[in-house]
């Protein structure tokens, strides 16, 4: 039995102290210990991107809100399993590459798998938010 480690973490503004086995993944900790089921666990070896944390904390940010609205508008989700990871990846994109082309959006989002939509709707949704933000900053 591995020795438990005491960790302190802040999740969405709340402090927590927990004793955990070293092999416990952050996403399992969030889901099973803290009851935050928004982050999903897919492949468990870094291929599908579903486990990107932490979507519950996003709703207060305008850029994340805009992405969520755009995903709904464009039907960029069906079962929704990949959506938390998609939103977090997309948010990093609009923060770091506000001038991304459609091709760059596709490349950036390529680490997140979706088995429902065929991706076009997701790329449409992200591109629309990029275009909106350009219009806003021009106005």
């Amino acid at each position, binding site marked *: *039995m*591995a*020795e438990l*480690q005491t960790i302190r973490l802040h999740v969405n503004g709340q402090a927590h102290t927990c004793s955990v*086995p*070293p*092999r416990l993944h952050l996403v399992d900790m969030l889901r099973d210990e803290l009851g935050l089921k928004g982050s999903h666990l897919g492949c*468990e*070896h*870094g291929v599908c*991107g579903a486990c*990107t944390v932490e979507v519950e904390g996003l709703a207060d940010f305008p850029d994340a809100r805009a992405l969520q609205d755009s995903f709904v508008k464009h039907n960029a989700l069906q079962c929704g399993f990949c959506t938390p990871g998609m939103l977090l*990846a997309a948010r*990093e994109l609009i923060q770091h590459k506000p001038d991304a082309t459609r091709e760059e959006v596709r*490349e*950036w989002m*390529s*680490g*997140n798998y979706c088995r429902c939509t065929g991706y076009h709707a997701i790329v449409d949704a992200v591109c629309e938010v990029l275009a909106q933000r350009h219009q806003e900053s021009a106005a």
Partner: protein
Amino acid sequence: MKSPEFDYIKVRSVEHALSLLASHGDETRVLAGGQSLLPALNMRLSEPSLLIDIGGIDALRGIQVTQNALRIGALTTHTDIENSALVAQHTPLLKLAVGHIAHRAIRNSGTWGGSIANADPAAEWPCCLLALDGTVIAQGPQGERRMAAADFFTGLYTTDLRDDEILLACDIPLAQRDDWFAFQELARRHGDYAIAGLAMHLHFAGPVVQSARLSWLGLNSTTLRSRQTEALLVGKPLDAVTLELVAASLREELDPIADLTNTGATKKHLATVLARRLLTQANATRQSVAT
């Protein structure tokens, strides 16, 4: 799947890491960005009893220009390299290659030193380090040791790094005028393991190649150079005749191993495709420099 149980120690100094390596021997694995090690644990390909997390040793992070080299610290992430102006200026090959490494989330965590020490035959950084004739710097109980990239990668996931050593950084010679670099790989989907990849470093005298390094990934159990073909390129312009000679030489020199979906013959053919593409590109660039 979940990984087997292991103990975990986060060290704050190289000395602490070295003492743990000395006392625990081969039951340990060094954890940096974890983008190869943690999947390997989850798939139960590796069962160390102790992970030594070196992620908190800030001295191992960062990119700087030393006297005549670019020094990349072991904990520098792929994204750090992607975003670095120093890399773009002094080692442009790395800039060309970095987009081929997996996907953004993985590039945000995965490290330069982890990739070099892991020596995956399909990984980009070992192949680039070999093409750039870089040097690996490691520290062990006896002090620091420098190893040329040409001697470092010895086999499948195997390097000259000893069990009691930690990789500190790599030194890469600064790009010179009349150097030319290119990187390309062929994969079924972008970000997948490449079927074949080529890092090329040419040095020109006018339109003529003065020196050449062709470094391959994905072909054999380790990254490797095609030295016979490199020698053939020296003193030649990159015209149609040379391209045919290069393709013939590669067919003779390379001996790729089949993977799950591609035969050795397919890989050999794809290697000649990559070489033709990059040399054609090099020639076009040199022609535009000349005119």
